[in-house]
């Protein structure tokens, strides 16, 4: 994306106008939100324990989700990109289906499997007395289920693109497979891993449907910011606007902070 590239191509008027419509489409809702937000009560909202509680819960759960997604998602991506596992296409489809499912459906599927009467949940309850629904771990499970595919797909294409010659050289020099994976492959795909983690984090932070279905809504345990926004619409529209603005600001801060360093990486993964 050098300056020279931009000047060389003259922009066709059709592209320009359609592009501007697209920009307006994204910017208008944000501007409208900013206009309608009762800014004078922003600090009241920040002093509101319920909002802060939801904010903290959202930040904590989405970060834990991101860490878990990296721990399990990177190996999965490696298996999909590099191994000779039979049925890789099918596995990839199954493991990424949740990102196209309506989130509420994902929530129902989680209840059917991990709910108190679920296929696995029943065993957890009977044997260990563990009940996931309505707990903070349930929020993380819901987020992980819908958000991890973003990391898996991004990292998989990172593995697929990175050259294998260095890895082969390391192997020839006697490095163990684990050493090659952790010291050669992983550093080479770090931009893709970071980009995938950011996408996953953003999706987890915004998760609503699967969370309210599987984890319910309890202040401090499962009421994340998106759920708080939705319920505030029922009671106090001003609060809903404020919380929405809070989420926009939060997302913006992260996006700006990551820009130069990492958002380029997202664009770089093709």
């Amino acid at each position, binding site marked *: 994306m050098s300056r020279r590239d931009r000047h060389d191509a003259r922009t066709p008027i059709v592209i320009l106008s359609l592009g501007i419509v697209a920009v307006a489409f994204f910017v208008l809702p944000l501007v409208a939100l900013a206009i309608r937000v009762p800014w004078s009560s922003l600090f009241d909202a920040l002093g509101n324990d319920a909002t802060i509680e939801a904010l903290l819960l959202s930040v904590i759960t989405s970060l834990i989700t991101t860490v878990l997604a990296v721990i399990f998602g990177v190996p999965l991506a490696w298996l999909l990109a590099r191994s000779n596992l039979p049925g890789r296409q099918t596995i990839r489809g199954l493991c990424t289906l949740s990102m196209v499912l309506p989130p509420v459906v994902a929530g129902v599927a989680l209840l059917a499997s991990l709910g108190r009467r679920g296929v696995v949940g029943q065993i957890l309850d009977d044997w260990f007395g563990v009940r996931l629904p309505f707990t903070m771990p349930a929020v993380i499970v819901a987020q992980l289920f819908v958000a991890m595919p973003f990391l898996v797909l991004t990292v998989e294409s990172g593995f697929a693109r990175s050259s294998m010659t260095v890895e082969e050289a390391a192997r020839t020099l006697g490095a163990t497979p684990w050493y090659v994976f952790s010291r050669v492959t992983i550093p080479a795909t770090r931009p893709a891993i970071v980009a995938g983690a950011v996408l996953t984090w953003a999706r987890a932070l915004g998760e609503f449907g699967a969370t309210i279905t599987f984890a319910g809504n309890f202040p401090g345990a499962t009421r994340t910011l998106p759920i708080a926004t939705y319920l505030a619409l*029922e009671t106090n529209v001003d609060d809903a606007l404020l919380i929405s603005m809070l989420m926009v600001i939060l997302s913006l801060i992260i996006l700006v902070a990551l820009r130069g360093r990492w958002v380029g990486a997202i664009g770089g993964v093709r």
Partner: protein
Amino acid sequence: MRLIARLVLAVSLLAACGPGDGGDDGVVVFAASSLVDVLTDLSADDESAFSGAVLSFASSASLAAQVIDGAPVDLIISADRAQIDELVAAGFGTSEPQVVAQNVLVIAVEEGNPLGIRSLDDLSRSDVLLAVAAPGVPLGEYSEAMLAAANIDVSPVTFEADARAVLAKVILGEVDAGIVYATDAESSDDVELIEIAEGDEVSVEYVALTLLDGSGRAVELLDELLGDRGQQALGRRGFGLP
């Protein structure tokens, strides 16, 4: 990344399959989610004014908020008079609010009632997982008021967005009991209904209001609800009549 492009396309196609915007000159009715069965019954009847109507169900509070934001709606039926009063005060109504039906709160428990829940008192037991509607939603407000009046201290595990969501958690067995409207509990064969003892019971009125921004057929809809066909349909689904 070609896979991602394909997935994005699939998502946008899925999103495009959502409910329409009402289209044509269709009548639009907003109703409290507990009325879903009754109005669906009516709209399936070719002779009904509700036949072919676009029906939207949600909690009364969020429906009222949508009307205030300019949704083109003919008739709104709320489970709480407060929302209707708000709309009238804001000048959206075209007639006096009318009570069209009544309902009562009950406790819904799993089929067979394995925990032997008999009364509101049992809801405070530590072995009973309880779901209620969120404060701010009419059902949530009624539930809270009922428990407060009966002086019963409960610790629900979840505050759901509307009556049907509370019921769903009971049906799925994720909670042992939920406080819902009697008609919701009766709509499902998978739950048992525990009536609330006399003195503690709370009754709810459904209030309808014809609206300014609709297609002009609101009065026809309201007349039908208050007439034989509407009242019979309400009665069949367990609603009390005004």
